[in-house]
């Protein structure tokens, strides 16, 4: 029990040290950092413009007011940014190809945690921008403190699940084809779908984005919870589903890493 606790503390410490180092590295190039901040802020801004244009030229989507759709789409941007903060698809591929992962495998830390500590740092600006837009949307709809807590928890678990899902895709594609530049676009594509009400994709789409690709658990259902369309029992059900995903993805990633060969080696 104590050993497990120590291990967890040591892993978290490693994660935080890596975060601090990454931030120092990013801040060393101040001009670059500032320009990337602008770039990252464009994602929530585009979401705001996009939803505003839809409701500027039409009545929007059935069952969704302007603020509700803004909340949902911004949750999509928030989770997409959080996933990018955890995993940089191109960098992970580079590490796999050049043998960088080999070094991680020799260290006494979980490789997944090391990979997640090397994500794209400047997307924090996009996370903060999305939180501001979500706050603005929330101030115009009725939310309860409990639904806010459930929303935050589900977005957090959902973001980690999505990051694990993307990592599993990267490892699978690397093992099969040794390349995968397209996976970043694939990740963006998933969040394009996930930032809309799942109902518009019909039953097949809803099932696909709930039990096959966990983007619904990370984006759509948390927004539904916050709006008040889902209750605590549904919250518990989707958290359970996320945990099942996490368990299965963790096992799968572990198996992929065990049989991994670097191209450099």
């Amino acid at each position, binding site marked *: 029990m104590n050993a497990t606790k120590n291990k967890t503390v040591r892993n978290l410490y490693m994660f935080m040290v890596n975060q601090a180092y990454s931030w120092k590295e990013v801040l060393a*190039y101040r*001009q*670059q*950092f*500032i*320009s*990337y*901040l*602008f*770039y990252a802020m*464009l*994602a929530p801004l*585009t979401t705001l*413009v*996009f939803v505003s*244009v*839809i409701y*500027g*030229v*039409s*009545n*929007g*989507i*059935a069952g969704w007011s302007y603020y509700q759709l803004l909340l949902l789409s911004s949750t999509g941007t928030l989770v997409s940014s959080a996933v990018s903060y955890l995993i940089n698809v191109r960098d992970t591929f580079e590490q796999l190809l050049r043998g960088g992962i080999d070094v991680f495998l020799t260290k006494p830390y979980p490789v997944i945690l090391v990979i997640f500590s090397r994500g794209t740092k*400047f997307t924090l600006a996009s996370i903060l921008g999305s939180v501001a837009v979500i706050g603005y949307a929330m101030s115009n709809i009725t939310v309860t403190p409990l639904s806010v807590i459930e929303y935050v928890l589900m977005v957090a678990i959902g973001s980690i699940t999505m990051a694990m899902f993307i990592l599993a895709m990267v490892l699978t594609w690397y093992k099969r*084809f040794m*390349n*995968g*530049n*397209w996976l970043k*676009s*694939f990740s963006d*594509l998933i969040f*394009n*779908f996930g*930032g*809309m*009400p799942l109902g*518009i*994709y019909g039953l097949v*789409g809803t099932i696909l984005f709930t039990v096959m690709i966990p983007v619904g658990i990370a984006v759509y259902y948390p927004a539904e919870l916050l709006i008040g369309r889902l209750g605590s029992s549904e919250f518990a059900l989707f958290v359970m589903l996320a945990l099942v995903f996490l368990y299965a993805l963790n096992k799968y990633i572990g198996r992929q890493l065990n049989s991994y060969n670097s191209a450099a080696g």
Partner: protein
Amino acid sequence: MHNRTLSKYWLLFEYEIKQLTSYRMDAVMTIVTTLLYPLALVIMWTAVYTFGGYDSISGFSLNGLIAYLFILSAINTLVWSSEIAWMIQWDVKTGDIAMFLTRPVSYIKGMVVDSLSETLFYFTVAGIPLIAIVILVTGMHVTLYTILLFAIAISLTFLIGALMSTILGALSAFITDISGIISTYSWAVALVGGGVFPLSMFPSSVQGILLALPFQFLFYVPDGIITGNISLAMAWGTLALGIVWAGILTVIAVLLWGSAKKRLDAVGV
């Protein structure tokens, strides 16, 4: 002499095509992802049209908007010339630029040829078939005259994209790292150039400004011409504005690159 110069660039062109086809699966998946990109938007707009019972929104019927969004994917393959800025930055940062500048091939022309080969590859294998499918499925009325105008418009798309990318790339001689600027540019240009939705959906005051800028030539103009949302009567005037912008951007690119070359310190860090 002229033939020798051409053959040098032809070799560069061939090399890039070989590179692209060597990672076939990646190329195929890039194409599939690009083609699927507008699907979420198409489904979303269909829901909007159905809910509101609209025949048209901002001058677009549902079929017209679906055609616009899918053709955007095809045109996107032409806008990949923004890679030029990334390549220039990389060469400046690593110091490789010093080696390239000593070669008997113009560095910028080489970059453009490199980018053109990638652009033509993706546009031929993904863009043109997609446009043909969209025309057949939506029953759009396309004449040879429209195709001629579209050909001029997409040439301007490539040219203006490549020039803007060169201008951005030249900044790497003055600023340590321009990757944030390039990323910001790529994203912003899609929004204000009609790469997310047609410019006619913006409020008229914003539209007025955006229709005077060169970014519309990257997405809105070629798409508008082939889908018929820019009338043939208006098309020549719009294309003339594009040629003027291409001229202005060429002058800026030449001056900036000339000045950048003088400032380059290839230390390779």
